[in-house]
């Protein structure tokens, strides 16, 4: 059974599949865990993979020579060019890339479960990092790149493309960008947008419902969906983006925000005892480990008590007068 050739289903074929799969920007955590397991499943796997990878890179190194020697592709393989023959060949690639940028699958859904985080790369090169318990949809097929944030929080790093503005609809507001990085949070009817790089515009879907606000680096707006008002503030964008490294950072935020964020992380629901508690302001860093520890630290950092009930954990404000 000593077969010199690679078998269609052997380790060499699997190795080739891995090399191709792993050059995809969408290759993520699940791929890493599967790949690592595959490498460790048999000593021959690493050898097969290294061989496939070496050939792959050899082709890259000789791309120029290969291209020249292979000559021009047959006419039927050329892309349709709208412009006349005068259009320089060098322009062809740029034209195709630009005009084809907004095309893509009609609608893609991205979602995360409680406690889960995920990174997605869109066909236009934009990246979205989804926080826990988030649901959003993406459509790149029209003149505008459109995202609808149904619930949750995400960081957007938008690939610049002035021809196709990137629009995020969240409740009664839309967020318009050309190319930037920012965080959008929509939980329990509260919407906030924080910009880390570039400029974004937030405007009501219905012009009667408020004004367009222009945000730049470090700006944040908060808005209660359904109201006409937005509150602007200046924040440390790094704080808002901290969730992607497993921490939540708050500066003078209401406890209701903290509880909504924690509920996205943990299956055991947290609830707030009363209105007074919800409005209490909180500043501090919460490491996201197990729920009981996080709640315990929260009650140490803020004047709060907590109690476990069969239906979840209740958090309330300590009564200053009782002390």
């Amino acid at each position: 059974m000593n077969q010199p050739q690679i078998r269609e289903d052997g380790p060499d074929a699997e190795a080739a599949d891995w090399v191709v799969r792993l050059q995809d920007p969408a290759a993520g955590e699940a791929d890493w865990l599967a790949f690592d397991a595959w490498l460790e499943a048999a000593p021959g796997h690493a050898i097969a993979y290294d061989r496939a990878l070496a050939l792959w890179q050899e082709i890259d190194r000789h791309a120029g020579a290969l291209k020249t020697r292979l000559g021009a592709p047959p006419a039927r393989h050329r892309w349709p060019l709208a412009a006349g023959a005068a259009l320089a060949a060098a322009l062809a690639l740029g034209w195709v890339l630009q005009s084809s940028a907004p095309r893509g699958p009609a609608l893609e859904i991205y979602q995360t479960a409680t406690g889960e985080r995920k990174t997605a790369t869109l066909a236009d090169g934009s990246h979205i990092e989804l926080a826990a318990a988030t649901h959003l949809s993406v459509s790149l097929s029209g003149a505008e790149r459109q995202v609808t944030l149904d619930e949750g929080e995400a960081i957007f790093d938008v690939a610049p493309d002035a021809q196709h503005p990137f629009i995020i609809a969240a409740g009664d507001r839309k967020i318009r960008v050309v190319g930037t990085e920012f965080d959008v949070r929509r939980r329990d009817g509260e919407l906030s947008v924080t910009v880390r790089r570039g400029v974004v515009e937030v405007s009501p879907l219905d012009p009667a419902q408020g004004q367009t606000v222009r945000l730049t680096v470090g700006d944040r707006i908060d808005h209660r969906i359904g109201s006409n008002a937005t509150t602007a503030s200046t924040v440390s964008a790094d704080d808002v983006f901290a969730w992607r490294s497993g921490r939540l950072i708050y500066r003078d935020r209401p406890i209701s925000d903290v509880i909504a964020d924690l509920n996205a992380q943990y299956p055991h629901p947290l609830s707030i005892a009363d209105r007074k508690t919800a409005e209490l302001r909180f500043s501090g860093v919460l490491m996201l480990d197990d729920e009981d520890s996080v709640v315990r630290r929260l009650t140490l950092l803020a004047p709060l008590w907590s109690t476990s009930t069969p239906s979840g954990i209740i958090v309330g404000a300590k009564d200053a007068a009782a002390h």
Partner: protein
Amino acid sequence: MTASSTDLLALYLQKRPALVRFFAPRLGSIEAAEDLMQELYLKLASLDPPTALDNPSAFLHRAAHNLMLDRLRQEKRGIQRDGAWQEAHELQAGEPALDDALAARRRLNRLIALVEEMPAKMREAFRLQKLEGMSQAETARAMNISVSAVEKHISAALKLLLRKIE
């Protein structure tokens, strides 16, 4: 369950070869993946011990992935994806010896013959992605087929070359 930073560094050392292999196709070279791992090491060494990682291996991947995104973001401003490292690599390799040059030319001819023999769609996907430097998504749009179809063509092309190159 708390993973100390020492545990994490030990795991890093154990997983480093696999991580290099994992990131090399995306970054375009083993050298770039090695650089990334060096950067990851410095990052991990300077990190406060992360509390209660339920999957330290996934954490390593995530940390490396974030570093890679930062790096790609910076590179995107300047140069085209593959050009830079390829040039560096070629310069480093220098001129091959005469025997090597003959062997290299023979191998290149063989590679070209194999690509020419490919079925039309496979060859076109291979050409756009590997030779013109298009992404999978761009290749899919240019050929008006799905991304997974492109991936299948490219995979099949690599298998064919692996099977027949020697």
